């Protein structure tokens, strides 16, 4: 019991920041007095998540923070100094791979970053001695590390792409690796980057598809799995489609084949079909079943889209005339939903599946168009009725005027 109490007291003591315990940190005191690179850690460490959690320089670098002589940095006092680049992952992993220790700070803290890192291209290359690849501090910073939830952190979801681009968009730095350096520029044009910039932090960034600590480019076969983690329904349709087997046979990378990878722009209906902007026509040629299906799907989508546009224009005119057509508007919204669903069903690559929805939507759009026409007819009837009423009113006013004149005219002699 006594031992447990002592252990607990020691733990509590360890968790209390040094400053709060009234201790002086000789590392900070001395390094603050230095200049240049050696002063840098002391300047920024107070913001660091480690400092915020009560850790000191000595917790990572060893040495004796109570000793204000140079002896504080003697190996005899456990001083480890700054690790070399190749040693950084192990250096961090001493704590970050220790589940028990990490749970002292956060019961949900992960401890698999190091093991994941070892599986990544970065980790593998570092093991081989390539010091240009990213290690922990290259992405997280050093001495001023912030939690990823902090918007100032380079690992915050809003900043991840820029952090990766720091190396991956630098053609000179990446020379020799044989991979493109335009990913960041292309990603910035994507619907994903656009959504993220609008403040939707659930929108994907580099690490969403590539992983973070275990960063590896998705292989050809894993692309639908990666996209399918968010676009679940599309992935399911693709799995059941004839494209699944055909793409596997031709070693084509699923979704990316039509949607590209980093520059994933908002798809348009012109991609479906056999027109000049079509992606189907990249593989399918006239006379093939796929070609006919693509042509049919494009026609179905166009038919519904035009039907919706026509109904929308009629309802707009009716609304501008002051007619109440909100019920028809509401109905037209469900035709729009059918169009969205039909666009999703394109991923079955089966025209019948698309037509089922476009026919349903077309029926609704026709009905709402007719409701708009009926409202315009009603408007005309009202205006005619108004004309008749106004004529009657003018005649009555005229009659009253004549009556008043007759009453007030002097009597004839």
């Amino acid at each position, binding site marked *: 019991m006594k031992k447990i109490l002592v252990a607990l007291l020691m733990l509590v003591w360890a968790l209390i920041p040094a400053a709060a315990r009234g201790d002086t940190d000789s590392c900070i005191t001395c390094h603050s007095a230095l200049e240049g690179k050696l002063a840098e850690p002391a300047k920024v460490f107070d913001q660091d998540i480690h400092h915020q959690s009560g850790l000191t320089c000595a917790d990572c670098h060893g040495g004796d923070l109570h000793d204000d002589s140079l002896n504080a940095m003697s190996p005899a006092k456990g001083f480890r100094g700054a690790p070399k680049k190749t040693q950084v992952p192990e250096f961090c992993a001493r704590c970050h791979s220790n589940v028990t220790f990490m749970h002292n700070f956060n019961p949900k803290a992960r401890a698999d970053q190091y093991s994941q890192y070892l599986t990544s291209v970065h980790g593998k290359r570092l093991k081989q001695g390539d010091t240009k690849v990213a290690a922990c501090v290259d992405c997280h910073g050093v001495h001023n590390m912030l939690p990823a939830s902090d918007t100032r952190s380079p690992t915050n979801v809003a900043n991840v792409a820029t952090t990766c681009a720091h190396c991956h968009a630098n053609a000179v730095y990446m020379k020799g690796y044989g991979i493109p350096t335009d990913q960041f520029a292309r990603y910035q044009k994507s619907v994903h980057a656009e959504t993220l910039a609008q403040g939707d932090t659930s929108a994907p960034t580099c690490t969403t598809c590539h992983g973070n600590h275990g960063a590896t480019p998705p292989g050809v076969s894993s692309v639908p799995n990666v996209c399918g983690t968010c676009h679940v329904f599309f992935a399911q349709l693709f799995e059941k489609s004839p494209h699944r087997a055909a793409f596997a046979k031709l070693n084509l990378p699923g979704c990316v084949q039509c949607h590209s990878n980093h520059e994933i722009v908002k798809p348009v209906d012109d991609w479906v079909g056999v027109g000049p902007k079509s992606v189907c026509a990249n593989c399918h040629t006239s006379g093939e079943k796929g070609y006919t299906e693509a042509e049919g799907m494009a026609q179905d989508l166009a038919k519904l889209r035009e039907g919706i546009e026509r109904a929308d224009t009629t309802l707009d005119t009716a609304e501008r005339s*002051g007619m109440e057509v909100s019920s028809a508007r509401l109905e037209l919204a469900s035709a729009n939903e059918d169009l969205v669903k039909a666009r999703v069903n394109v991923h079955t690559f089966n025209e019948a599946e698309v037509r089922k929805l476009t026919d349903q939507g077309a029926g609704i759009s026709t009905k709402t168009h007719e409701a708009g026409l009926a409202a315009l007819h009603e408007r005309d009837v*009202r205006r005619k009725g*108004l004309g008749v009423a106004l004529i009657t*009113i003018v005649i009555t006013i005229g009659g009253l005027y004549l009556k*008043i004149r007759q*009453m*007030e005219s002097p009597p004839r002699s």
Partner: protein
Amino acid sequence: MTTVYRRVLSWLDERFGAGSIEEFLRHKTVPVHRHTVWYYFGGMTLFLFIIQVLTGILLLLYYRPTPNDAFESVQYVMTQVRFGWLIRSVHSWSANLMIFTAFVHMFSVYFLKAYRKPRELTWITGMLLLFLVMGFGFSGYLLPWNTLAFFATKVGTEMAGSIPVVGKWLLIYLRGGEEVTGATLTRFFGFHVAVLPGLATLLLAMHLLLVQRLGMSVPPGVEKAIGEGRQPARSMPFFPNFLLRDIMGWYAALGVLGALAAIFPWELGTKADPFAPAPAGIHPEWYFLFMFQTLRYIPAKVIFLEGEFAGLLAFGAAAAVWVAVPFIDYKAGFGRVTRFFTGLGVFALGYMAVMSALALR
């Protein structure tokens, strides 16, 4: 026909002296001078009020005052009920025209000094009716339960809440709780169809009685000219000459109402969503715009008062002065026209017009 009329009149006369009414109407006259045209605006306001009552009763047949049903019931009236669109649009347009003609009537009475002794009570009942009419507008605006109405009511009732001491109580009383909810709708419906009509009927009866009792006021300038023999004292019989002219005006108003309803049916908007953010550019009905714009210009703190409360206090004081003007400008009762009060009227009219225009800018 004349015999039947005589017999009915005689029957009524024996029971409550109806003959005296006929006698009164026969001898009632209306002064004729260059400002006679302003006399018609009181009758026009009364006509539009009657239209409001009739169309309001018809709307009551379908309207349901709950947050779930209010919008849909008005939508049903607009789209499914035969001539429902006409009744609802006429009700809304007529409300606005009525407030407009009531303001014209009030300002014409003010500038022609018709409030002077012995018509102080006519002026006070008229002013109270004008406030009631604005209350009708405010309470009726919420009833369709659409987005604009919802947020305008929220802002409007919040202003009442800024009054020190009683503000919180007043806000809860108006809203039926802390927030604008179904309780507010039920409450406003009650005010709109029961409380305000009851009060309006009482005040209207008093106002009309006073008008009949005291007759139409002749402006001091005309009165002086007649007194000095520069102008003859002309008049016309109220019945039928003036009444027929009144009816001509009412017919014209009916035509305007019909045209507005057919060409610009009153919009319904979208159903109120209490959880949605307030739409941009929200503003109250046109007759509250001058107050709304003034409150926007007032800083957050005026000396030691909250800006909003200071604004409301200023408007309250101005309204009190306006109601009491027959007693303040008592010299007008002796035929002495002071330029100050005419200038004050021009300032008030100009202020309202400029502030309303700025609010719409």
